[in-house]
C-alpha cells in the first residue's frame, strides 16, 4: 500500500510482565477508516494511544504520512491528530465554543478564523451556533457532549482522527444517528480514521476495514464482507458472530447496486430509496410478501429491486 497515511510496524508495549500489544503491524490508507475491535484488555486502546504517543511503545515504529512519529515533538504531533476519547472529557470550565477551539488556539489561529470554524462545526453537528456556543458542557445531554467531543477533535482540520469508543454509553437510537452523521462527514472531508470499539455492529457500520484483536495481536484484518464470509477459526469466528451473517452482508450493500431499470411512474405505497441497504429492502420484501419493490427517488419510480437478486448477494460464495 503506497502512501499509507498511518503505518504501524512491529509495535510492542508491555505493562510490567504483561504484554499489552504484541508486535502488531498494519497500514491505513489516506481516506480509509480502520476499526480495531476486540474484547476489553485486548490492547486496542493501547495501540491507538501509541499512535499519538500518549503511550510510548517499547518496540516498533509508527509512521504518520511517511514521517516517524518519534521524530516529532509529542505535543505538536497530537495537535495534528484529532483525538476523541472514551468518556468525552470536555473541559467543564469552558464553554462549548471554547472547547471546540482548543487546538486552533494552541496553533495560534486568528480570532475570526477560529470563530468561523467553531460555527461551521456546530452547524455540521446539528447545533445552532448562537444558542449552543456559549453553553457549558454540563448543560448538554450525553449525546450532545459526544458530538461536541468529535467536533473538538476535528476543529483544526486534522487529516487523521483517532477515536476510542466515540459513541459508547449512548442509547441505540442516538448512537445510530451519530454513526450515520460521522460516515457522512468523513465521506465529505476525506478523513483518515482509526476507531476503537468492542461493538462489531459499530465496526461494520463505520469502517472500511476491520482488525480483530485478541491478547495484543491482530488475528485478522479485512474488509467487513471478507471478514463475514471468511472469518478465521477460533476467536475471530466467535467474535464476528455467524448466526446472522447473511443479513449483515446485506446491510453492507445498497439498493442502487442491484436496481434494475423500470418505467417512470409515481411512487407506489411501498418502495425503497437507492441508498437504503439491502437488509432494509429484504426486510420490507419479507413483510410485504412480494417478489420486487419499486426504487423511488424524489417521488418518482427510477427502478426496481428483486428478491432473487438480494438473496443472491447474501448467499455463501457470492462476492
Amino acid at each position, binding site marked *: 500500500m503506497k502512501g499509507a497515511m498511518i503505518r504501524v510496524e512491529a509495535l510492542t508495549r508491555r505493562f510490567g510482565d504483561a504484554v499489552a500489544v504484541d508486535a502488531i503491524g498494519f497500514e491505513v490508507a489516506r481516506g480509509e477508516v480502520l476499526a480495531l475491535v476486540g474484547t476489553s484488555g485486548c490492547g486496542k486502546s493501547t495501540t491507538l494511544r501509541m499512535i499519538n504517543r500518549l503511550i510510548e511503545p517499547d518496540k516498533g515504529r509508527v509512521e504518520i504520512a511517511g514521517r516517524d512519529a518519534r521524530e516529532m515533538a509529542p505535543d505538536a504531533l497530537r495537535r495534528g491528530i484529532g483525538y476523541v476519547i472514551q468518556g468525552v472529557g470536555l473541559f467543564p470550565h469552558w464553554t462549548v465554543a471554547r472547547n471546540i477551539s482548543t487546538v486552533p488556539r494552541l496553533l495560534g489561529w486568528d480570532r475570526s478564523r477560529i470563530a468561523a470554524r467553531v460555527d461551521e462545526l456546530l452547524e455540521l453537528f446539528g447545533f445552532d451556533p448562537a444558542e449552543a456556543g456559549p453553553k457549558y458542557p454540563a448543560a448538554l445531554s450525553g449525546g450532545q457532549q459526544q458530538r461536541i*467531543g468529535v467536533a473538538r477533535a476535528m476543529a483544526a482540520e486534522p487529516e487523521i482522527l483517532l477515536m476510542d469508543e466515540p459513541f459508547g454509553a449512548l442509547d441505540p437510537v442516538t448512537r445510530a444517528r451519530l454513526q450515520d452523521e460521522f460516515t457522512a462527514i468523513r465521506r465529505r472531508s476525506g478523513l483518515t480514521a482509526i476507531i476503537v470499539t468492542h461493538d462489531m455492529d459499530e465496526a461494520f457500520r463505520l469502517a472500511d476495514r476491520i482488525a480483530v484483536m485478541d491478547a495484543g495481536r491482530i488475528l485478522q484484518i479485512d474488509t467487513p464482507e471478507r471478514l463475514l464470509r471468511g472469518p478465521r477459526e477460533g476467536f475471530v469466528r466467535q467474535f464476528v458472530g455467524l448466526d446472522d451473517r447473511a443479513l449483515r452482508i446485506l446491510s453492507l450493500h445498497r439498493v442502487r447496486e442491484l436496481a434494475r431499470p423500470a418505467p417512470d411512474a409515481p411512487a407506489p405505497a411501498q418502495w425503497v430509496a437507492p441508498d437504503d441497504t439491502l437488509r432494509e429492502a429484504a426486510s420490507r420484501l419479507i413483510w410485504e410478501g412480494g417478489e420486487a419493490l419499486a426504487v423511488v427517488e424524489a417521488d418518482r419510480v427510477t427502478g426496481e429491486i428483486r428478491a432473487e437478486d438480494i438473496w443472491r448477494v447474501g448467499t455463501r460464495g457470492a462476492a
Partner: protein
Amino acid sequence: MRRYFLAPLVLAALLVVLLLRPELMTPLLRLLAEPGQDLIYDRKPLMTLALWHLALVGAAGLVATVIGLALGILVTRPGGAEFMTLARMASNLGQTFPPIAVLAVAVPLLGFGFEPTFLALCVYGLLPVFETTVAGLRGVSAPVREAARGMGLSGVQRLWRVELPLAMPVILTGIRLSTVINIGTATIGSTVGAVGLGEVIVAGLQSGNTAFVAQGAALVALMAICAETALRGLGRLADSGALTRA
C-alpha cells in the same frame, strides 16, 4: 456578586466600628470586670493592634499558600510523585507541632516579636493548603486530563488552563481554613512580643482583667468570622465559575 459578599461586608463594618469606638462595648464589659478595673484596653489603639494582627496573618498566609501550592503542584506532577510522602510528612508535622512549641524554638534563633510568630503561622498554615491543592488537582477527572494531553496541551498549559482552574474551588477551601485557623493562632504571638490583638488578651490574663480578655477574644473572633465569610464568598464565586471561566 453582592449576595456572596454582603455578610462579610456587614461584619467588617461592625469590626471597624468596634475598633475605633471600643467604648460601645462598655455596657457588656462592665458585667465582667471587677469594680475599679479599666474596661477598655488603652495602652495602644485597638485599630493599630488589629492591623498588625491582620498583617501578620496575611503575610504568613501568603507564604503558606505559595509554599503549599508549589508543593501540591510538585507532588502531583509525573516526576514529583516520589516527594509525596516527604511533603505530606513535613506538612503534617507542621500541623501537629503546637505553634507555642514552634515559638519556643524560634525565639532563640529569630528573637522576639514579629518574626518567630510569622514562622509559626507559616508552618501551621501550610498543611490545609497543601492537602487541598493535592486533593483538588487529583480530583480533575481522568477523561479531562486525558483529553488535555491528547489535544496537545503542554504540561504547563494543562496545569494553568485546565487543572488549576478546575481545582480552584477546593484549593480555596484550604486557604480559607488556613487563614481562619491562623487568625486565632496569631494571638499566642503576643506572648513573645508580636504586636496584635493577642496583646489585649495577654494583658487581661496577667492582670486578672476579664473585660480585657473578653474584648480581645471577641475582636479576634469577629475578625476570624469576617475572613471566613469573605473567603467562603470567594469560594462560591469560584464554584459558580466566574473566576475561572475563560
